Every structure is written in structure tokens, then in C-alpha cells.
């Protein structure tokens, strides 16, 4: 069943002001992390529609990573608080829908935390590898 060479495909939604900048910092600092994540820049993690996450999973993403600013740091003041509530409720829905909620990960990573970004992605890729491919993935 599980392919030993399974490389998870992860869709990452990251806020422009913090986590996306952290990814940039990780890049210019030449930090090593697995290349499994496809980053999508949002102005704010609060702009993430829950349907984007469902769509990514339905189209076969093995995991969805969402990155935003730490509480109190949101460029738009409360966007990340909204994200926090939405993702909590979305995870509950995903569980009821029969999808492992560990496939969705929300982290607060500031623009200064390139190391945390690289470490988080590494950890998430490892976790998704353990979970195996998304069962919704269409046969190629």
C-alpha cells in the first residue's frame, strides 16, 4: 500500500507579512527544508476561505499548511484570530467528513522566524509521510 518513495504534495497558504516573509528569510539564509510545499501568498491568513482548503484536499493535496502572524502582530489587526477560529471549526468538519485533521496544519510564524519555518515544514512533511497519500488522490 504505502509507497516508500512517497513524496507528499503540500499546498501552503501564507500571509505576505509574516510566514511568506519567513519563507523568504529561510531561502536567503540557505536553510535546508524539503521541497514538498507549493507556497501560495495571501495578503492575510484571514483571507483564506475554508473552501480553498477543501478544494486543495479534494484535488489531491496530501497536506495543507497555513501560516500567519503571531497573535497581536496581524497587519490587519485581527485576521489571524479569524483564521484560528475558522481552521478550528474546519478541522472539526474534516474529521466528520472522514479526513484526518492532521493533514491541515496552522502555524504562527513571524517574518524573523526563518528557522522556525524551515523546521515546521520539515516536521509537517515527516508527519504527512507517516499518514501516507491523501485517500482522495485520483489515480494518475
Amino acid at each position, binding site marked *: 500500500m504505502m509507497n516508500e518513495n512517497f513524496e507528499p504534495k503540500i499546498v501552503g497558504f501564507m500571509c505576505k507579512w509574516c510566514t511568506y516573509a519567513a519563507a523568504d528569510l529561510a531561502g536567503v539564509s540557505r536553510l535546508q527544508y524539503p521541497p514538498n510545499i507549493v507556497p501560495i501568498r495571501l495578503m492575510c491568513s484571514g483571507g483564506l476561505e475554508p473552501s480553498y482548503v*477543501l478544494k486543495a484536499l479534494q484535488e489531491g493535496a496530501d497536506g495543507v499548511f497555513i501560516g500567519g502572524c503571531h497573535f497581536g502582530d496581524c497587519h490587519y489587526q485581527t485576521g489571524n484570530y479569524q483564521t484560528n477560529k475558522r481552521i*478550528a*471549526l474546519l478541522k472539526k468538519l474534516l474529521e*466528520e467528513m472522514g479526513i484526518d485533521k492532521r493533514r491541515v496544519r496552522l502555524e504562527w510564524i513571524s517574518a524573523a522566524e526563518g528557522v522556525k519555518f524551515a523546521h515546521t515544514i520539515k516536521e509537517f512533511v515527516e508527519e504527512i509521510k507517516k499518514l501516507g497519500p491523501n485517500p482522495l488522490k485520483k489515480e494518475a
Partner: protein
Amino acid sequence: MAKPKVAFYWCASCGGCEEAVVDLAEDILKVVEAVDIVLWPVALDFKYKDIEAMPDKSILVSFINGAIRNSEQEHIAKLLRQKSQLIVAFGACAHLGGIPGLANVANRKEIFETAYKLTHTTVNPKEIFPQLVTEIPQGKLTLPEFYDTVKSLDQTIEVDYYLPGCAPPPDLIMKGVQTLLSGNLPPKGTVIASEKALCETCPRNKTKPDKMVIKEIKRIHEVIADPEKCFLAEGIICVGPATRGGCGERCINANMPCRGCFGPTKEVIDQGAKFLSALASIIDANTDEEVQKITESIIDPIGLFYMYSLPTSILRRKQGV
């Protein structure tokens, strides 16, 4: 000139849509006068073979209600598509999958086990389940195949127009029928209802506070709702913000919150995800503990957010069943 031919058919539905047609009251006479009904199993005796014998595209419009749950429904939907110029998905089940679509949280095996074995009122010691073919001395008896997954009408055949609602209100039905008979057709794929959310026309909208905050979720049977106030502002879940308007606010006026039978507005694909987003936004919780507590108090998100639209949602069904 011959009157245009019209067919009414029901798939997986409760009969409420047929009832809504009857509720046209004297207006139904106008419909009957204007058209020649060629199929209406609930009310009139026609045979499928009569339809099969008709030339292709000879029916002007077929109104089909109900979701597609078995092979007979699929067959007749395809037959009517072949024989009709226009297909109207009539009511929430044909439009979005509807209440029967909630069966997509299970599969055929689980449904049969529950219905024919596990319920307390079932006595079935030989564990007899419905069979496609049963041989008896007189010959073979057949039943349609019950599918694993419930589908909306447009996941089975091409649909031209949608009349939303559970059931569609009579004035909307009349408007739809008149529009189709007038020949002045709206663009294909139109949902014959409002383009705006229910909140736009909700009579309680004026009591909606500028900044909505919910501290606690209340279920409708736990409280006596104030008949004047916005349900959401009171902490009662109302799917109005994520639901298309045009229903006449029948539930709201009966002091019941909206459950979303008109489906999402035009721009939205997934009604449940949209509502989830809106609901989460107005919850007043900042710390993880507060968020956790209120999230846990929301019972059955699928049933609440996708009461009428699970088969047409992005995920379409529960996975792994």
C-alpha cells in the same frame, strides 16, 4: 397549435415538491390549460413506454425533483433529457442533492444494515436484503439498483434551469413556469430566485447589530427565540448569510432559522464552507481554549452546514465509507 408538452418526474424526494405544485391552487388550472402534461407519476397514470415512444425533444420542458439515488431514477432522468428541450431541476434535492444527499455520510452497505437489520422495529431473522433480481415461481422480480452515493440531477444529466427550495414556493413555481412558456428564456444554468443572500430581505435584518458577536451557540429547541431579533445575533445558528434569497422568508416568519434550502448564491461553490467561515468570524473567542470550547459546542457540522447541499459540496461525501 398544439399545446407544449410538459413532464413532471420525481426521483429521491419526499413528495413535497409535488405538493408544492398542488399548492398552486387555482393557478394550477392556468398551467393545465396552457400545457399538455405527458408524465406525472404522482397524479396521473402514464407509462414509461409512452415516453419512450415519443420523438426526441418533443417535450418542451421536464420538471424533475429529487436526487439521483438509484438506477431507475437515473434511467428516467436520462430518458427525459433525451425527449425534452429543457430540463428544470425542481427543488433542493434535484438542485443540490437535498436532504437525501445527507445519506452520503454513509454508503449502501451501512444504510441497508441500518434499515433492514439494526433498527429496533426491524424483525429480519433471515437477514433478507433487497435484491436486484428475485426468482419466484411466477417469474423474475426486479428492483432498481440502490447506489452508494446520492447525486444531484446535474451530476447525472445536463440541466438547463434550477428552481430552488424545499419545496419551491408556489409563486416562484408560477414565475418559473410562465418564464419558460413565454419563450423568453434566461441564460442557461440560471437559478430562478434572488441573486442575493437571504439576509438582504430578512425582516429581522434591521435588528442585526453593527458588530455581531456570539459568545455561545444555542440550539433552536433550547430557547424561545425572540420573533423580532436576528437569530445569529442571539447565538442561534441561521444559515441565511450563506443562502440565496427569494424564498419569501417562510421559515423566518414562522420563527425558525434558515437551514439553507435555496443553496448558495451564484459566486459560491461550497455553501457549507462559506457558512463555516461566516459563523467562525462572528464567534467571540480569542484564546485557543475559548475557540476549542465553542467549536465543540457546534453539534454535527455536516448536518448543519450542508443540510441541503452535501452532494454538490466540494468534498461531495464522507470519505472512507
